[in-house]
């Protein structure tokens, strides 16, 4: 069982992701974040539950929807918000935007906006750890859309053959833009991983303790050199695919479905649970929020006051020195 400090840390990470995303949502209407954003509100438990098990030298690789992993893995929030504002001080120096977040020092090796692109890249990072006899693990995040791609199948097969220290985390929120999983998959996703001989789990991705448990198991297995694991986390994104819209209505998701998932809020559930077992009380909840709001305030101030790149910098970084 987790000790109280860890439980509170898990809560803080989830709440940080939620509050940062809400602030991004609030600021987006002012048109200063001039790049597409993909919010993870509703999916916080997955990144939090996985990343709390990772060491600094372990890596994560993500997708277009990577704010949550970046924060959970300890990425620099100032630099992340500055990147959303496309500033020189942003983690990708304003070249990437919200879909291309990186913080190598925290083990965040980048995120790709090509669906399925994170899977072979992350597999390669795990391959390097193995070839270099390092004890590092790579957590590879992707959505249910990405498992449609050949890269998913080809990478899992390779990782299984080579017993790579990789953890594949599918954040299954049912949708790829507006396409429902039903029109894209012939079976449950985790079964495909099983087919490649990889231990695979399908779990409630809104239950952070469950995610924590399974991820811990998978990560220890990888560290012992026993190979990859696959975790399909069933969840829901509250926001529409892109921007701050909701994607509810005809031809899109139904209000009833949406309401059901709001009632399954991962953070509310965990907060109530922690209160129930006496780990959190209202005062602590308040002071945690205050602490997080300070971080957010500082990050947005840092971003908004940072300089933009200069036109003359355009072709910097096309090649490495």
């Amino acid at each position, binding site marked *: 069982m987790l000790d109280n400090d860890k439980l509170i840390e898990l809560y803080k990470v989830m709440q940080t992701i939620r509050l940062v995303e809400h602030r991004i949502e609030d600021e987006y209407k002012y048109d200063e974040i001039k790049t597409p954003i993909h919010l993870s509100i509703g999916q916080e438990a997955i990144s939090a539950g996985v990343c709390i098990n990772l060491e600094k030298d372990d890596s994560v690789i993500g997708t277009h929807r990577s704010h949550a992993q970046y924060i959970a893995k300890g990425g620099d929030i100032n630099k992340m918000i500055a990147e959303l504002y*496309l500033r020189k001080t942003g983690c990708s120096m304003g*070249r990437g935007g919200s*879909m291309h977040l990186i913080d190598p020092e925290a083990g965040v090796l980048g995120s790709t*906006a*090509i669906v399925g692109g994170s899977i072979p890249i992350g597999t390669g990072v795990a391959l390097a750890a193995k070839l270099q006899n390092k004890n590092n693990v790579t957590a590879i995040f992707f959505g249910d859309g990405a498992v449609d791609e050949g890269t998913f199948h080809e990478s899992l097969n390779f990782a299984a053959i080579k017993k790579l220290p990789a953890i594949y985390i599918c954040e299954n929120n049912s949708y790829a833009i507006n*396409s429902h999983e039903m029109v894209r998959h012939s079976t449950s996703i985790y079964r495909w991983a099983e087919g490649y001989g990889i231990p695979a789990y399908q779990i409630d991705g809104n239950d952070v303790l469950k995610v924590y448990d399974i991820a811990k198991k998978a990560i220890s297995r990888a560290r012992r050199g026993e190979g990859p694991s696959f975790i399909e986390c069933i969840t829901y994104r509250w926001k529409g695919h892109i921007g701050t819209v909701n994607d509810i209505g005809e031809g899109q998701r139904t209000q009833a479905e949406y309401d059901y998932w709001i009632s399954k809020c991962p953070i509310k559930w965990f907060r109530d649970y922690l209160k129930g077992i006496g780990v959190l009380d209202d005062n602590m909840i308040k002071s945690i929020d205050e602490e997080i709001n300070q971080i957010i305030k500082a990050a947005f101030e840092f971003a908004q006051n940072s300089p933009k790149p200069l036109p003359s910098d355009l072709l910097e970084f096309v090649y490495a020195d």
Partner: protein
Amino acid sequence: MPWTTIEVEKQDKFYIKDDSNESRIISYKDAIYEALDQSMARDSRVFIMGEGVDDPAGVFGTTKDLHKKYGADRVFDTPIAENSLTGMVTGAAMAGLRPILIHSRMDFLIISLDQLVNHACKWCYMFGGKVKIPLVVRTISARGWGSGAQHSQCVQGMMMNVPGLKIAAPATPYDAKGLLISSIIDNNPVLFVEHRWLYKTMGNVPDNLYSIPFGKGMVRRKGTDVTIVAVSYMVIEALKAAEKLQSENISAEVIDLRTIKPIDEDIIFDSLAKTGKLLITDTGCKTGGVASEIAAIVAEKAFHLLKKPIERVCCPDGPTPASDVLEKAYYQDSESIFKKVLEMMK
């Protein structure tokens, strides 16, 4: 919701007077929709598949509700599997159908290059002409607001290197409709290049079915001092530049190639015979791109017509930056064409 107010929505509706006398004026986007609708009505072998084609947004409105009209067997959503989808439409084409596959961003086309380049485009040749692949791949260069390096590429230049592929890059609503119909009735794989910033362009479009031949360019504006050969969206920027050049007493001829494989060489040479000066402008990167190929053709066959070195106005050889400041520096427009022509006139 700023993403929905991306730059293209803020653009003025640009009106292009076309070679049609038809009085009906519609947008580029509606012209594409109409070509699909009428082609499906005319030929039951035509079907559309791709990611989100039956989505409420209907690929920026170009396929909106077609599944309701023609059924889910002829217009359907797919898993996100560009390479294999390309192989599947290739197989369906060799088996007698006329598939249309859509990539909502040209970047995703790159994933499908194995099936497109190694298979679809070579099949007819490899088997001595015994099978044909009447396939249309629509791709949209969705240049936008902070889209960054993986969501805004224009790689038509790269694709010109593929034997067996035809490439259409219409700039006007009239051409969008006519060339899409030609692409559908063609017996070869055709890459149909669209640019998101063209979707609001308005022009005269007949309501009947008509086709436009491949390899036949158009003079969009007559001129005598300089020839501007433009591709896809850059036709609009070239026309704006020509207008501005007029006030400097420079008469620019603007040529819209309409298809870049094959290329209408004669229309370029005829114009150069008058002007002796050539500027080429494309939406893609400069090196090894469409403009390079056109420059090579002219150097090879019409060197004697040139009074000045050829100039190219293309994106620089770097990935697309997300930053608004850097995007502005990256994308070329009427201003960059205007300035380049002024230099050429010195």
